[in-house]
């Protein structure tokens, strides 16, 4: 999936350079047009400062022989980001941390006479548990008097969705899935509660900003005479930073976030299940694990604590938030909690449907953990077992899956309010359906339950 010069589809907008893949490695071409800015980034010490402090991805300069076009100034090989995630998959605190790191980089850049020319949330990725800027070509030399070129984008990509998540509904980050360049400010303004007009940052950066956009939409203004002093620039960044810091979201005690406190598992069963998962992980030795329906990441951490990169997906924003906050507090580097509705996973979106990858395009994982989830898909979502097996076949090479039979209290709870139209939901039918795609390596019953945990490997591995 590349363009005619071989660049990756997510990096075509910026004339300064582009990303391309050569022999399985990712490279970035820096074009001659960006020479002055790139050289300043390196020579001013800014590159060293932001990479040493871990807020920007480091790279290594390689020869220009690899250049894809004649105007290559440099070819760099950036550090690998092992899993690409997108802002519509982040919880509130992930988006907030991504916003704050963007502003921190802008402040550091200004000290070195540079400024961020864009503030796209897609330029931030999580590596080792923390947000980092991945676009080395985001810096331009600062000219005294110029305003912040990325101001509007920052408001649309960060401030507006964070304000909506904080003041209206946390699920409104899903607007980012529809609006590829961030939430339109007039939409944000109309969705935010009236009381947000009484706080200066939201009144100015969102409500009045939206009004101003509409007011000047059909007017021509000579902007060349209008300048912004350096102090004003610093004041603006400082104001945006305090605005973002003030935005909070505390999850209510949701159904899922309290799951392990109110579950059918006994201490023994939970302990045994952890041990079983640990055993199969040691046996399979995966490099990357996807834990689907991870809740607050209890079993994800069995994998991540072993040094395995673990993407911990859940549909409940409160669970993802709780898990992310825990990962930050503990300084965990191998777990990435993400928000995902498995019945409608992230699609490929953007220009030509190629800018942002679907979930499937980012796979397969070495191992998928699919624990205490199948009954939710099969019974709550009417998904036939064969279709679940077919989907899992596409996203992993080995599978740790728990079958929860109809007799289980949790399944009985699901069936208590609906007609049982699932005569095929049996352990035998499950084994048959999955047997078409996977080979069962081991199976064990979980203590004090009728649940079974299977390790399966893909037939066409």
């Amino acid at each position: 999936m590349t363009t005619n010069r071989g660049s990756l589809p997510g990096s075509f907008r910026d004339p300064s350079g582009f990303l391309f893949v050569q022999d399985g490695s990712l490279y970035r071409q820096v074009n001659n047009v960006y020479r002055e800015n790139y050289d300043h980034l390196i020579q001013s010490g800014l590159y060293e400062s932001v990479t040493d402090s871990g807020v920007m991805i480091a790279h290594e300069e390689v020869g220009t022989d690899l250049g894809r076009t004649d105007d290559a100034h440099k070819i760099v090989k950036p550090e690998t980001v092992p899993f690409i995630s997108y802002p519509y998959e982040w919880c509130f605190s992930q988006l907030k941390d991504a916003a704050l790191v963007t502003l921190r980089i802008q402040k550091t850049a200004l000290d070195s006479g540079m400024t961020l020319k864009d503030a796209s949330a897609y330029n931030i990725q999580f590596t080792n548990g923390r947000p980092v800027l991945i676009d080395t070509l985001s810096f331009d030399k600062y000219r005294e008097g110029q305003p912040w070129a990325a101001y509007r984008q920052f408001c649309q990509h960060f401030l507006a969705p964070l304000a909506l998540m904080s003041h209206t509904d946390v699920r409104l980050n899903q607007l980012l899935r529809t609006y590829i360049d961030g939430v339109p400010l007039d939409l944000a303004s109309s969705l935010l509660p009236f009381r947000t007009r009484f706080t200066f940052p939201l009144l100015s950066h969102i409500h009045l900003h939206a009004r101003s956009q509409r007011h000047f939409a059909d007017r021509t203004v000579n902007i060349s005479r209008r300048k912004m002093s350096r102090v004003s620039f610093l004041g603006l960044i400082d104001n945006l930073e305090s605005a973002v810091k003030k935005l909070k979201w505390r999850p209510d005690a949701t159904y899922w976030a309290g799951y392990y406190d109110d579950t059918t598992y006994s201490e023994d069963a939970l302990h045994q299940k952890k041990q079983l998962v640990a055993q199969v992980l040691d046996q399979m030795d995966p490099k990357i694990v996807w834990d689907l329906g991870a809740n607050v990441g209890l079993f994800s951490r069995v994998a991540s604590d072993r040094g395995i990169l673990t993407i911990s997906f859940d549909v409940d924003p409160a669970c993802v938030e709780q898990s992310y906050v825990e990962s930050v507090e503990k300084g965990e580097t191998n777990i990435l909690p993400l928000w995902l509705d498995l019945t409608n996973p992230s699609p490929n979106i953007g220009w030509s449907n190629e800018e942002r990858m679907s979930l499937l395009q980012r796979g397969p994982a070495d191992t998928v953990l699919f624990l205490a989830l199948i009954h939710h898909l099969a019974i709550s979502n009417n998904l036939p077992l064969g279709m679940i097996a077919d989907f899992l076949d596409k996203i992993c090479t080995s599978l740790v899956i728990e079958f929860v039979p109809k007799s289980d209290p949790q399944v009985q709870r699901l069936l208590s309010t609906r007609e049982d139209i699932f005569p095929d939901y049996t352990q035998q039918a499950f084994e048959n359906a999955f047997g078409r795609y996977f080979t069962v390596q081991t199976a064990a019953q979980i203590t004090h339950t009728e649940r079974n945990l299977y390790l399966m490997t893909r037939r066409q591995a």
Partner: protein
Amino acid sequence: MKHSRRLANSVVLVVLLLFASTQNAHAYVDPGTGSYIIQLIIAGLVGVAFAIRIYWGKIKALFSRPSGNGQETGDDNQ
């Protein structure tokens, strides 16, 4: 102090908002100009506040040392 400053800022902007009529607004046109103008207005306001904060901090630092010394002197006198 903090509240009154915030209030004053809000009042100024509400006045600006009143002037910013939305008649003849056209959708689907470049929002860049409006973003540019509002940025200059906001940055002008918060820039003043930012500068005052920075200089106030410096002024306070300038005066806090002599007064600190004064206290020490007072202690010595006792």
